[in-house]
């Protein structure tokens, strides 16, 4: 099924015929017997992997299979923050690749993902953070990523509602990335899905993988609730459920699944037009296009697959944000939700071959996967197609055996 192009002419044409001519954005076919590549997980990362497999590498005999509904996991549950101000070179490379792809993703996909490079600040609220973020600014300069250090007065200018001289956590400056921002998270998944469907790929929802079939150490297919599907290569891109799929495939991952929560306030008039992250007090906030203040904090500390987090994190994060933005204390909270994030020890992702030939994993994005979707898909597609990707090279599973960690838990504080 090839969709008609979305354009101003299409809108005008449909306006004249009661919008009766819009088609479904992607097809929902029954699975075929065999695909060259099966991608498990139709979230942002899985769909982006499939998209770049087709677009860059010409592999279109691809199925993306999804247990629930498309974009219903962490893709639909995050706080939509996009930035690339990382400390370590491999992280900076892949996150900046992602951020730069976001810049023209709407044009590329012919789908408005509402990328909004509104600017992003990471507040320094201790002497320690000042030194850390200045170091990141210098590292970013060498990596070719535009960030700069700004003073408390400049912070106040950008964010009038902020309290910069709070008695406990005064704002001492900030790491500022002007081209960081947000995008519409659902649209990213929907846009990739539509583009994949247009290339002839099959997106199969409500289809849970129940087993992985291997022969002589090589993958040959998957068992699903919609029957067996053969495949040449298998890409596991399932975030919080990575360990479950790894168990089916016969290996273990250095991953623990934990709950991370976010919540939004009632909608209010435009109040804050940048993204603010306060890592010392574990909170970050931005305003959605609907007017809600979108807030998030840290993960729970224990293994959890329930997509429900602990209450005390909501209280702790909201308390921190009330101190940073006093007007928040006058708002009602509207909704709260949780997602299951896949945490690695060094807080960096895993894009890797596995002990089973033909199986590739893309996981471990933990609390910060949304921003990486295009870069992650781009690198994963290259890894699956060619067996090697320069962007993914240092994110392999080998780094745990060799001790070559990409230590972003120190570099980024808590919030990704």
């Amino acid at each position, binding site marked *: 099924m090839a969709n008609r192009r979305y354009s101003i002419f299409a809108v005008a044409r449909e306006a004249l015929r009661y919008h009766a001519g819009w088609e479904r954005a992607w097809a929902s076919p029954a699975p075929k017997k065999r695909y060259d590549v099966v991608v498990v997980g139709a979230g942002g990362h899985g769909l982006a992997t499939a998209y770049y497999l087709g677009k860059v590498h010409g592999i279109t005999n691809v199925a993306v299979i999804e247990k629930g509904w498309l974009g219903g996991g962490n893709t639909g549950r995050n706080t939509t923050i996009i930035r690339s101000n990382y400390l370590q070179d491999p992280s900076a490379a892949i996150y900046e690749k992602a951020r730069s792809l976001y810049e023209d993703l709407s044009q590329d996909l012919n789908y408005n993902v509402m990328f909004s490079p509104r600017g992003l600040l990471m507040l320094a609220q201790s002497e320690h953070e000042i030194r850390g973020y200045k170091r990141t600014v210098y590292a970013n300069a060498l990596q070719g990523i535009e960030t700069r250090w700004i003073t408390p007065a400049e912070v106040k200018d950008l964010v009038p509602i902020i309290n910069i001289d709070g008695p406990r956590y005064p704002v001492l400056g900030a790491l500022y990335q002007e081209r960081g921002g947000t995008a519409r998270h659902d649209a990213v998944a929907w846009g990739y899905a539509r583009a994949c469907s247009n290339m002839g790929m099959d997106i199969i929802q409500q289809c849970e993988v129940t087993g992985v079939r291997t022969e002589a150490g090589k993958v040959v297919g998957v068992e699903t609730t919609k029957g067996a599907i053969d495949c040449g290569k298998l890409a596991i891109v399932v975030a919080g459920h990575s360990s*479950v799929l790894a168990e089916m495939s016969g290996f273990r991952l*250095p991953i623990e699944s934990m709950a991370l929560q976010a919540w939004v306030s009632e909608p209010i008039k435009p109040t804050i037009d940048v993204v603010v992250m306060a890592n010392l007090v574990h909170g970050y906030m931005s305003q959605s296009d609907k007017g809600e203040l979108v807030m998030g904090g840290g993960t729970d500390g224990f293994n959890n*697959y*329930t997509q*429900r987090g*602990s209450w005390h994190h909501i209280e702790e994060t909201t308390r921190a944000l009330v101190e940073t933005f006093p007007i928040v204390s006058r708002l009602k909270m509207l909704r709260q939700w949780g997602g299951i994030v896949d945490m690695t*020890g060094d807080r960096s992702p895993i894009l890797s071959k596995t002990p089973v030939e033909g199986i590739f994993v893309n996981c471990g994005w933990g609390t910060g996967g949304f921003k990486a979707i295009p870069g992650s898909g781009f690198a994963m597609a290259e890894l699956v197609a060619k067996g090697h990707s320069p962007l993914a090279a240092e994110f392999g599973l080998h780094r745990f055996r060799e001790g070559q960690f990409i230590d972003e838990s120190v570099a980024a504080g808590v919030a990704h």
Partner: protein
Amino acid sequence: MLTLTCPYCGATVEETELAPGGEAHLKRFGPGASDADFESYMFSRKNPKGVHFERWRHAYGCGKWFLAARCTATLEVFGTYPAQTTEPPADLVAKIKEKRPTWEGYE
């Protein structure tokens, strides 16, 4: 909210009084071990969707480490037991098997 009973002081407390410590009963590999054993001891985790044995510390109470059996898919707590053991007590395993007939057991 998650509540656990500390097997040492007997207090049933909620999670803000506790500190999580990850998977229990890890077999330690140190100097002289193979790279693969050391890697799996340091990093690889079962991370099951279901019955999980894990370490907790009664951080804002008696301060002691203890172990708990909990379901990560439902948050049901099966029981807690002292940390001075290399495997879960048999009565707790039997109790879990009764509640989760398809559970393959502790390995």
